């Protein structure tokens, strides 16, 4: 049976089609079960891709129909955007996906969790089980052995990574947000995800400040009171977008004196800027505005692309391993048939000779053991050779030759 992949992704499909083909996880589980029928199926659906991995009869046809139904588009249109891959090419594709090499941001970490979830709710059998486990292994290996996922890929994650570079673990770091908009919230989420405590939210509208603060377990205060709290926090995120400066050099200088040498990290996400750039000149104080953060992200993405070449090599190695395993499956039924055939002859001949020889129970057991050993020894080398051939490209033809030579037929003995 062939492993088949039919899917569409951000590489060639516009978002208008992708969003129609998107399948939430519970429905992905349902769809996989329906598609599995007598075979296997897993549906991997994220905002960037919807992919169906199938093993079974007429898999491509069924997957295409499913994608056509999901997208609600004419079949011809769907055929124009989907990719269809089989066996090792399909496996290699999934390994690249799990490693983050097929993502918009190379090495992004979310995809590995999405692959795991799709696998867990899918209807995997022996082939897809092996495929997805190996894909998860490849994804982890790429992240462990290359620096592809180490550097930040967005402005908010860059801000959090820089804060970590100053303070180390952020568990004991207190953060103040100045401004309660969407940008501040994104930065707060990124910092909180790394352990920081969002202690204060300052805003012109105290209601909005409190509404945001309560989500992170902090307190909301009016904007005018923010300067008084500056000495108490380690990280300040400012994003008011107000025309004037929210903090000047003198405010920060006073806060630094009160902090007795403990550094202060300031992130200015506003345009026009909220914080006086002269603050950055102060000793023990690090100010990053939106341009600074974007240049950190740009440098980091360039680094990720460099690391992608090393990641590709790891993925190719895993692809090769899977190919070997898949090929070995071709010869397994032939080996099993060969052994069953030999065992059948051995047992029949032994039974025929039993009456003629007049063996006692113990003598019969000894002869049974000796004949079994002879069969095993005779078949050992052909079995090894068949497995070796399977790891190369000749597995199929060797299996066919064995079936022909011993007249084994095509059926699996089991």
């Amino acid at each position: 049976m062939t492993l088949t992949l039919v899917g569409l992704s951000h590489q060639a499909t516009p978002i208008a089609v992708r969003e129609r083909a998107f399948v939430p996880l519970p429905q992905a589980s349902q769809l996989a079960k329906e598609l599995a029928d007598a075979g296997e199926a897993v549906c991997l659906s994220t905002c960037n891709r919807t992919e169906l991995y199938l093993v079974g009869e007429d898999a491509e046809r069924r997957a295409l129909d499913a994608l056509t139904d999901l997208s609600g588009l004419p079949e011809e249109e769907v055929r124009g955007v989907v990719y269809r891959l089989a066996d090792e090419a399909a496996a290699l594709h999934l390994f690249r996906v799990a490693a983050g090499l097929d993502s918009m941001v190379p090495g992004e970490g979310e995809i590995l969790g999405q692959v795991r979830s799709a696998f867990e709710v899918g209807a995997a059998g022996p082939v897809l089980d092996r495929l997805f486990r190996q894909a998860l292994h490849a994804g982890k290996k790429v992240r462990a052995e290359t620096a592809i996922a180490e550097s930040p890929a967005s402005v908010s994650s860059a801000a959090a990574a820089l804060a970590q570079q100053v303070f180390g673990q952020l568990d004991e770091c207190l953060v103040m947000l100045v401004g309660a908009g969407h940008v501040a919230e994104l930065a707060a989420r990124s910092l909180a995800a790394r352990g920081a405590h969002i202690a204060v939210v300052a805003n012109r509208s105290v209601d909005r400040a409190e509404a945001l603060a309560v989500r992170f377990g902090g307190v909301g205060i009016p904007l005018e009171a923010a300067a008084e709290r500056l000495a108490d926090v380690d990280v300040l995120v400012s994003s008011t977008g107000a025309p004037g400066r929210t903090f000047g050099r003198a405010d920060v200088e006073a806060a630094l004196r009160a902090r007795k040498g403990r550094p202060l990290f300031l992130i200015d996400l506003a345009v026009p800027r909220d914080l006086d750039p002269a603050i950055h000149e102060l000793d023990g104080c690090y100010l990053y505005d939106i341009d600074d953060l974007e240049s950190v992200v740009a440098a980091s993405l360039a680094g990720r692309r460099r690391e992608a070449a090393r990641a590709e090599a790891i993925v190719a190695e895993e692809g090769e391993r899977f190919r070997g395993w898949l090929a070995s499956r071709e010869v397994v039924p032939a080996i099993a048939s060969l052994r069953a055939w030999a065992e059948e002859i051995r047992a029949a001949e032994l039974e025929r000779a039993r009456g003629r020889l007049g063996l006692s129970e113990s003598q019969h057991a000894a002869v049974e053991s000796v004949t079994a050993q002879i069969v095993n020894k005779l078949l050992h080398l052909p079995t090894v050779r068949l497995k070796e051939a399977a790891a190369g490209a000749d597995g199929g033809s060797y299996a066919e030759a064995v079936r022909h030579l011993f007249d084994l037929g095509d059926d699996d003995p089991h």
Partner: protein
Amino acid sequence: MGEFLFWPVLLAYGEAAVAYAGDVRRPGSAGRLATWGVRIGWLLQTALLVEQATRADGFPWTTWAGSLNLFVWLVVTVYLVWGCRDRYRLLGLAVMPLAAVLLVLARVGGGTGATGSGGYSTAFLVLHVGLLSFAFAALTLSAALAVLYLWQERRLKAHRPGALLGRAPSLLTLETLSARTIVVALPALTAGIVAGLVRLRSEGGGIDALMAVTLGTWVVYGAYLVLRYEAGWRGRRAAYLALAGFALVIVARVGLQLTHFS
């Protein structure tokens, strides 16, 4: 045997220094090679020192070159405590080239071979030279931490964190570790100095240049701890002060002969 071991030690430390530089450009296998270079070099140097100790009569490292050899071993020993951790690999960039250079200096300045104790009791030499060497080694590590701090701080100030992000220890960690290392080193330095002064008082004699510089080192590091913990000196100022103290360590270790043991 001892002379034969010198070259593999130098080769291993040199390889570690080069590999650490490679690890900055491209993290991964170069970092692992560097760590193994440090480990193998340290084992070989340990064998070298053991061989010298078994061959010598009494404390064997009283010459300038011999004590420098011991000092390098102590520096690498202290470094190994942190060096095997991924996040402290960059520290090797400061420590291993220094270790390799000092080892070459020891070789050029009289060989790494052992000598006799020159009439001093082994117990005194172990206490005095051993404690001072340990203190100097710890202070060297503290200086390496301060260098890494200044380098990283400079890059953060320049808005170019580059490869540091997520790979190097944080500024606060480096600063704290540097101070803690000095906290450990200063009592050893004090005890080593006291042992020397007690001996000087009972045997007579004046203060030579090495003693003066060692006392100066003690004053600088003492001031460092007072200023850091009492006056809140942190960050760049503290790092520069630690490096000022280390300049005196280098003068004491490399610039001056151990004249009072000759």
